[in-house]
């Protein structure tokens, strides 16, 4: 396979560019205050506080097991389905604490969509994969409306042109990269405000990865995007802000350009320069 299409820019170049594009501060979408998380007795996150701005891409980086995925999953209460887990602290979306008693978790998860590390399309047709979320959320409406929403979701995920003539075929017949874009389309269909992406490209080849990254860049005008990645170049390429995690703690959180060119923590510098990780 030819990889000549993707000349990976140096970190400094990218940082320079994103600094020029001016990650202007936008209103806070997600505000996390002193969040700790426990799997049984084991503490996975220790007092993490950060604010995620709306309509920007925020990347979480750090070595394996540093808590970045766990943290991501606290933002739509996905960890609730794991038994014997416990959350302390506050996560507010648009000012409302999502762990407050009486929170409608189902509605929360509709507002905060998620794309997983391993693409997980339902073993149904391409069309039904998109339509499922619309149906369970009572957003299906008339047939023609459903058709329109399926089409617009697939277009938003840059998949429509590749699948428009085979919507009734099984989603499992798609390539890995297409499956992951289908999962993105599925998440977008229910019109979330925030999109969480847990290493969405880690299982994909470079070309498929590039398409996902382009997509992330396009989507941020409409959505607040949080992406976990173990790939520092990816964080540098797609994100406006970057948070560095280490052993369950937030080490540093700043503009991506700052993190990659002039980090204030020694640990960050060691990590982004590949001295450990």
């Amino acid at each position, binding site marked *: 396979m030819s990889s000549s299409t993707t000349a990976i820019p140096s970190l400094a170049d990218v940082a320079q560019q994103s600094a020029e594009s001016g990650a202007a501060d936008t209103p806070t979408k997600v505000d996390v205050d002193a969040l700790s998380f426990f799997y049984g007795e084991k503490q996975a996150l220790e007092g993490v506080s950060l604010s995620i701005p709306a309509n920007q891409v925020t990347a979480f980086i750090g070595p394996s097991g540093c808590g970045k995925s766990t943290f991501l999953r606290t933002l739509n209460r996905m960890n609730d389905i794991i038994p014997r887990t416990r959350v302390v602290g506050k996560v507010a979306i648009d000012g409302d604490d999502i762990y407050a008693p009486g929170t409608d978790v189902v509605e929360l*998860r509709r507002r905060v969509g*998620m794309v*997983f590390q391993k693409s997980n399309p339902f*073993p149904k047709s391409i069309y039904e994969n998109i339509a499922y979320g619309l149906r369970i959320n009572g957003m299906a409406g008339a047939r023609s409306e459903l058709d329109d929403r399926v089409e617009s979701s697939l277009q938003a995920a840059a998949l429509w042109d590749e699948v428009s003539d085979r919507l009734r075929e099984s989603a499992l017949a798609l390539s890995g990269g297409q499956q992951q874009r289908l999962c993105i389309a599925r998440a977008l269909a229910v019109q979330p405000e925030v999109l969480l992406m847990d290493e969405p490209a880690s299982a994909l080849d470079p070309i498929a990865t590039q398409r996902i990254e382009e997509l992330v860049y396009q989507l941020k005008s409409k959505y607040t995007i949080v992406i976990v990645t173990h790939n520092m170049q990816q964080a540098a390429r797609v994100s406006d802000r970057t948070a560095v995690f280490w052993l369950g703690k937030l080490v540093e959180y700043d503009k991506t350009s700052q993190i990659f060119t002039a980090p204030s923590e020694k640990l960050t510098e060691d990590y982004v320069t590949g001295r450990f990780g």
Partner: protein
Amino acid sequence: MASERRDRIERLIERGLQACAGLSVLVTAGILVVLLVETLQFFREVSPFEFLFGTVWTPLFLQKSFGVLPLVGGTLLVSFIAMSVAGPAGLLTAIYLSEYAPSRVRRVVKPVLEVLAGVPTVVYGYFALLFVTPLLQQLIPGLSGFNALSPGLVMGIMILPMVSSLSEDALHGVPRGLREAAYALGATKMQTTVRVVLPAALSGISAAGILAVSRAIGETMIVTIAAGQQPRLTANPLVPIETMTAYIVQVSLGDTPTGTLAYRTIFAVGMLLFVSTFLLNLVSNWLRERFREEYA
């Protein structure tokens, strides 16, 4: 020297193991050959057409008639009743255990269910005859002492653990990622279970169901004890009937002289039984393979 000796022992062990494996294959093949030969002998005297489509089964009477349909009908009736119990109850149990029960409950309930599968079938047979039938007779006046209903219900209880255990395996085998995907879209637990997990496990669940049907068709003791010995082509579960398996028992135990045509009927019936359960097992295996491929 020592190494030569070691090699010889290794070869000996290998040969011994080969012989063990070969023996079981040979015995199975031998049974099949006997079954086939006797069946062919039978069909020399009775046309397969008469056997398969005749509606009267009286090979032990003076007026001999060799239509196997009453036995097939009796078998299907009892199996149908059994599956009406074991199918829904087994599936619901599986859904509860896999999706709703805390892992603590599952760890206790699943082995208990599997122990139920180890109860000797003769116990179930007497349970049907001496407990369930009298109970049903109080509810349904005119229920015969031997009938299809009571052994059918008890057989349903007998195969329920098999259905629930295999279905639970299928549900449990659905990747967690699919459940998470549904939850992440704002699905409730029930929406996730009914519209994502169940369809995804369908081939595995069907495999479990078909295997259970195969088990029901081949089940012998319960129906021999509690269903009666009257070959009768009927859909009425309240009267005595006879299944293929019970007929084979009846002839094997009775005073039918060996080598006679009446005696050979049990090989023909046995062949039919073998072919049908064999085909069902094949379909079940095929479905299970497909399930495995989907989530490899």
